[in-house]
């Protein structure tokens, strides 16, 4: 009961219901345009029969191929409150993984607030595991302390030995990640 299609600029005028969620960031226009110009296939929106936007996923492919680090990355994934608990996020993740498979990625990774237990559990259910903790990755604006992120990964078929997801023993700083 969903129409899945490529995200277009016009959707930016309609995504309030999704983005007024406190955990969903509304980025500046350049950020969206950069993704649309560079990785349009990774930016997918789900639309309800009435035309309301239900949710979207935004991602990219990056990393060095020679160092076995070529991978898909989930930049944003959000579903509007009234379309939750339908497995929509899982469907969108599945699509992103398939695209990354086709591009010959070794794994898919994403960052999530350590406090966002609902999301962390969902990603675990989808086969992701914590690869490392990134200290103070999310900067807070209102004087509260910055928050750590989990860098979660799932190996793709190209990484036959699942080397890419072996957890790092120590947390890293944001400036140490690529």
């Amino acid at each position, binding site marked *: 009961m969903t129409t899945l299609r490529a995200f277009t600029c016009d959707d930016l005028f309609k995504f309030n219901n999704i983005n007024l969620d406190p955990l969903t960031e509304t980025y*500046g226009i350049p950020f969206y345009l950069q993704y649309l110009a560079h990785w349009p296939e990774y930016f997918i929106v789900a639309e309800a029969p009435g035309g309301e936007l239900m949710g979207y996923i935004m991602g990219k492919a990056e990393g060095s191929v020679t160092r076995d680090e070529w991978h898909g990355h989930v930049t944003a994934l959000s579903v509007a409150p009234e379309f939750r608990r339908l497995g929509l996020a899982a469907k969108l993740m599945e699509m992103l993984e398939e695209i990354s498979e086709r591009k010959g990625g070794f794994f898919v990774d994403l960052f999530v607030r350590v406090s966002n237990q609902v999301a962390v559990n969902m990603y675990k259910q989808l086969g992701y595991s914590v690869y490392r903790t990134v200290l103070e990755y999310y900067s807070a604006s209102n004087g509260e302390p910055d928050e750590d992120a989990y860098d979660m990964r799932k190996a793709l078929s190209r990484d036959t030995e699942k080397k890419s997801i072996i957890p790092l023993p120590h947390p890293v700083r944001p400036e140490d990640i690529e």
Partner: protein
Amino acid sequence: MAARGHVQDPNDRRLRPIYDYLDNGNNKMAIQQADKLLKKHKDLHCAKVLKAIGLQRTAKQDEAFTLAQEVAVLEPTDDNSLQALTILYREMHRPELVTKLYEAAVRKVPTSEEYHSHLFMAYARVGEYKKMQQAGMALYKIVPKNPYYFWSVMSLVMQAISAQDEKLSQTMFLPLAERMVEKMVKEEKIEAEAEVQLYFMILERLGKYVEALEVVQGPLGEKLTSELQSRENKCMMLYRRLERWAECNALSCKLLLKNPDDWQFYLLYFDSLFHLIDQSWTPPQEGTHSAEGEVHASISQALSFMEDRIATEEAKESKHLRGPYLARLELIRRLRERSCPEAQQLGEPLELMFQFFVKFGDKPCCITDLKIFLDLLTPDQHVQFINRLMEAVPLGAPGEDGVAFPGDTRALQRHLCVTQLSRSLGQQHALNTQGKLGLIKELKAHYRHGLQFGDQNMLWQSLGLLEEGLSHSSSNAQFKLLLLLLYCRLGAFEPVVDLYSSLDAKHVQHDTIGYLLTRYAESLGQFAAASQSCNFSLRFFHSNQKDTSEYVIQAYKYGAFEKIPEFIAFRNRLDHSLHFAQVRTERMLLDLFLEADISSPLEESVKSMSLCPEEDDILWDSLRDNRDLTVLVSWNPKDRQLNAEHKQRSLEDDTLWLRLRSLTLRLIGCVSALTHPPASRNSEKRTENGVAAKPSSLRSLLSQLESTLNQATQFTEKQLQYPFVGPVPSRLAQALSSGCCQCQLSSLQLPLHLQELEAAGLDESTELQTQISNLFKSLAVQLQDILEKCKGDPLEVKDSQSTTQHFLLENLVYFVETVCIVLWVSNYCVSVLRPLKSSLQKKKKKKKEASTVTPPVLSAYQEFNSSLQSLLNQALEHIKSQEISLTALKLGALSLEGQTQSEVRTFTKMAMDKVQSSYLRSLQEIGELLKKRADTLKSLKI
């Protein structure tokens, strides 16, 4: 900042500190360092440009430009200078100069791939498609790389898209683009997916669907791999265009088997099915049904296909998909529309919807799913339907007050869904007042908000309930939006600022929901907040103009050709945004109201905002309404939902108001130019920011304002109402009823007559003087009338109930705005009358005449000036007394009828306090401005 290579060119080393200063925002030091360097190395051009960047960033635009041009005329070919100039021109918003720069560079170094590519991008930034086409080909000739060739092809497509003449696109640009690609295909030189995408785009725009299909299905189509289902989606689109229903049907079948939840393919499946039936399609004697496999061309096949889909779902243990069940309802609807008796074979909609509710009722989207199919029920089934659903909601035993509560969140969700459906069916609206109150009580007991309007007491309760809700769910956007809307409608803007900022609306959201903030701030007299809200939006729009072009260039680089027209359309959509035009206009008006002739003279304010009365800066025919009017969720029945007509009306409403404001603004510019004609009167050339209003533009703007006012009056006479959770009405109706528009028009007409007087002189103008004197008198009367409409208590307590009359605040704002305009016009009057008076006195002295008959126009103006004085005193007195009585008002003493729970009472009290405080603030800000205006009256005596 500019790229710094690894090779240690001594110049690079010398320039490095300047780059660093600029990067760190230390522009002063950058300039000093550049000066130092230039003393030693006069010919280090780049240092000059870097200095210019420093100057530009310290607001010395003219100096920066002169310096940059010194380098530009030398036609530099060193990387450092070129890149620095590019950055500078971009910051100056002069991208067209970058093209000149690289045109010169490629002339001097014709084999440079880099410069040619910069030239292409420079053209792309300014949208010079023809030159892009040539630059692309020139590049390809130097370095035969495919992307360059296809940049050129894409530039042809862009010429086609932007051509005014559709015929030219179809017969010249697109065919040429097609031939260019075909050449590469024949030579087997096609390499990338982007190239195939572009080929497809061209064929599609040419309407060559058969050819496009061949490409997608042929070997070139194999390159279409990035996007999921890219080939299938494209084929489907083409089958539809070609009306190849058999293929369309077979392909949707296949895709539905793969993903039985994809709604778009159900719709295509049904569409194609009925087309095939209408065409009496029969399968071929032998071979496959179609290129896409088996075709369904009869109702019985469709019925069994649907049954299979449902059976598959039923067989699943968990994670049932909603698609098949909803598709069954959709099929019933379509069969009924065609009066097919087979509709009954699929089952009774009431029963099917009940089963759907049993399966999916605990999902929040169940309401939006079922809402679409409510019209399958007959009106007499409504009650039965809701009762049936209610039975499937597990509620606990009723408590003391007879209300039974759901035990867990799933049950709560079900209960919510039934309540929403019952609202959608109009059952709640059908209740009488008693019934509605009972329902509210019940719903409140269920901890939710049921909003009913009409009674102010009810409004307070709603506010209280929502405030309570927000205190429990501090990130619920719907609570915030509803509160925001209610406070605005009550005329209380102060709480809105915090609510809006807690929504964390940013960037594009300033365009889509910024209207919630900008509509009310100014009209309620919260001027500081109004300025700030306009600034939020303006900052976004201005940065968009610069940013978007960069991504058009990125799209070329990455070969995302289909995104190029999309980005350009997006940029235009933002540039032509209604909200953009509104905040631009209101921001200027606001600045004038607050500052002009208070902190600086009117003409300086006008000059500093580059306001040019002759030029209309709004493209009225291209205005885009980007407001998100559906941001608030509504479960109301269809006749109370926002519809297309409301949207159209609201756009008309807002546009009319904008027209009035924009004309007023330009007329103020005219008045300013009349009062202080530009110094360089003799020279024909107008300075860039200068204002040179001709009397003709005053006359034409006045007649435009008059006719727009007539249109506006007709529009408001229709007294249209929008749904509560729909668009907010513009200020038009209230402004008209306050009388301020008419009064502003009258005052702006005065200069025309005074110009005549100036030409005629005092001696030969008795009739004209009488006419002007009457206009002064009428203006004073009109102002008095507006002021009368401001009198009364904005917050009133009667019989232990409090009611608001917030329109009194709005009227006060209109009064102040009108006073501002009247005073500016007075200033012009003074500039005409004073010289006339002094020349009269000189004459008198010469002739030593004893008789002192003051010309009527002079005495009339003096009278007008003193009536203004008394009007302003009255107004200030009124505001002061309102402030005192509002401060003394004790809302806490009110008995809040019908509010049994002390919890709710606390929150209602809180809401009332917020309103009270906001009103006080509005009064203070309005009073302050009025006082400042009153102070300027003294200087307007003659």
